[in-house]
């Protein structure tokens, strides 16, 4: 059995766990804990080690999806999770511009870990106060060549599109070499 891995990363509360839950064929193996810091209590629980989802491709191939913890104090997990990844997805909460700087930091950190293809997703695009993609691209200082994709993490079709775009990017980079 061959296995490949995609990593879903991004700042705290950007929707990584929900993203994996939407598409995984197994219940996501989650390591969520109750939030202890008052300043981070915009949700009840957060991932502290990783989320783990799976899609069986065929009899010989399995795709694993790993979600990283969003809080900086668990960042020792990032490098471990990034080992051997096929590509990665950076999730950004479109309605929380105060997390864009953190998203940028995470993106740069993962790029430094491995030269693998990646896409950036603007999650929570269904919210009224979500930023426009072009504004987000500017704020995140993304190169025009980097895909910045709209996303609603609880919508399976939206998640499928993101995964496919990442795979197309991987394919394109493979062909370009």
């Amino acid at each position, binding site marked *: 059995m*061959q*296995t*490949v*891995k995609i990593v879903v990363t991004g700042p705290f509360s950007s929707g990584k766990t929900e993203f994996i839950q939407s*598409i995984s064929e197994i219940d996501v193996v989650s390591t969520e804990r109750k939030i202890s810091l008052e300043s981070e209590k915009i949700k009840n629980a957060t991932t502290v080690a990783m989320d783990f989802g799976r*899609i*069986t*491709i*065929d009899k010989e*191939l399995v*795709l694993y999806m790993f979600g990283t913890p969003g809080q900086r104090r668990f960042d020792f997990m990032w490098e471990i999770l990034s*080992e*051997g990844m*096929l590509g990665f997805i950076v999730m950004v909460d479109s309605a929380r511009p105060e997390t864009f*700087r*953190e998203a*940028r*930091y995470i993106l*740069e*950190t993962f*790029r*430094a870990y*491995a*030269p*693998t293809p990646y896409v950036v997703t603007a999650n929570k695009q269904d919210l009224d106060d979500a930023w426009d993609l072009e504004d987000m691209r500017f704020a995140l*200082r993304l*190169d025009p060549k980097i895909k910045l994709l709209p996303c609603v993490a609880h919508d*399976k079709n939206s998640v*499928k599109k993101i*995964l*496919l775009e990442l*795979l*197309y990017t*991987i*394919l394109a980079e*493979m*062909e370009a*070499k």
Partner: protein
Amino acid sequence: MALKGNLRDFTITQLLNLVNLACKTGTLVVEGPADVAKITFREGKLIYAQLDHLDNSLAGILRRSKKISSRQYSILSERAANMNDKELGILLINAGYLSQFDIIESLQQYFVGIVRQLFTWVEGVFHFEVNSLQPFDKIPVRMDLENLIIEGSRQLREWEQLQQEIPSLDMSLKFSDRPGINIRNVNLSVEEWRVVYYVNPKNTMRQIAKATKLNDLEIRRIVYSLLQAGLVEVIRPREQTVTTQPRAFPKTNKPEQKSLINRIIDRIRAI
């Protein structure tokens, strides 16, 4: 317990705060990558500072603060070579060249300048020599540390933000692919031009910093301003070999790689 350690764990601002709160007397010796600084305190007040690579003589300090000209400096260096700073200071005051205020002001500016420079050091080790004071022939001043600590705290915040923006100096820079921008028409400082000169996907930021003799904070500050201006982009170094662990992904066989990705694409489309 000896007060010694690494600047990565304990910043200059924290050290000044400690000296200030504990009203310490002694000399803080900081050994950075390129220089050694000695900062002396008496009962928590800054009284003296020196950088080993600089001319720390009174004549040198007065020339730097433009209280005397280069010619006057040369004459003093020649004729007053055997005088120590205290003697030279008294001579200049008695001869009416300078006032006591001029001398004290120059010394204060110089010492504060050294502490400010220390704020940019992020690498290095330090130790505190209790009760060790400035050399006897040097003129001490007496300055509160509060303003310097506040200034240092601001700089620390800047450092943290720059680290977030540019987490690794092992990445390279390349000029942005933005037609229409001619870098010759952009007003850059001398330091920025020096960095720009080395912008090349083959050079990491760490290498550029070394070549331009900039420390971690200074190179980050300049790169950040170039990034903000949209002149450069951060990229992976061209010749760097990355040690990824492929595990199951076939790295060498291209058709096999493509087939694998296409199988995943087909499966996800079908979900």
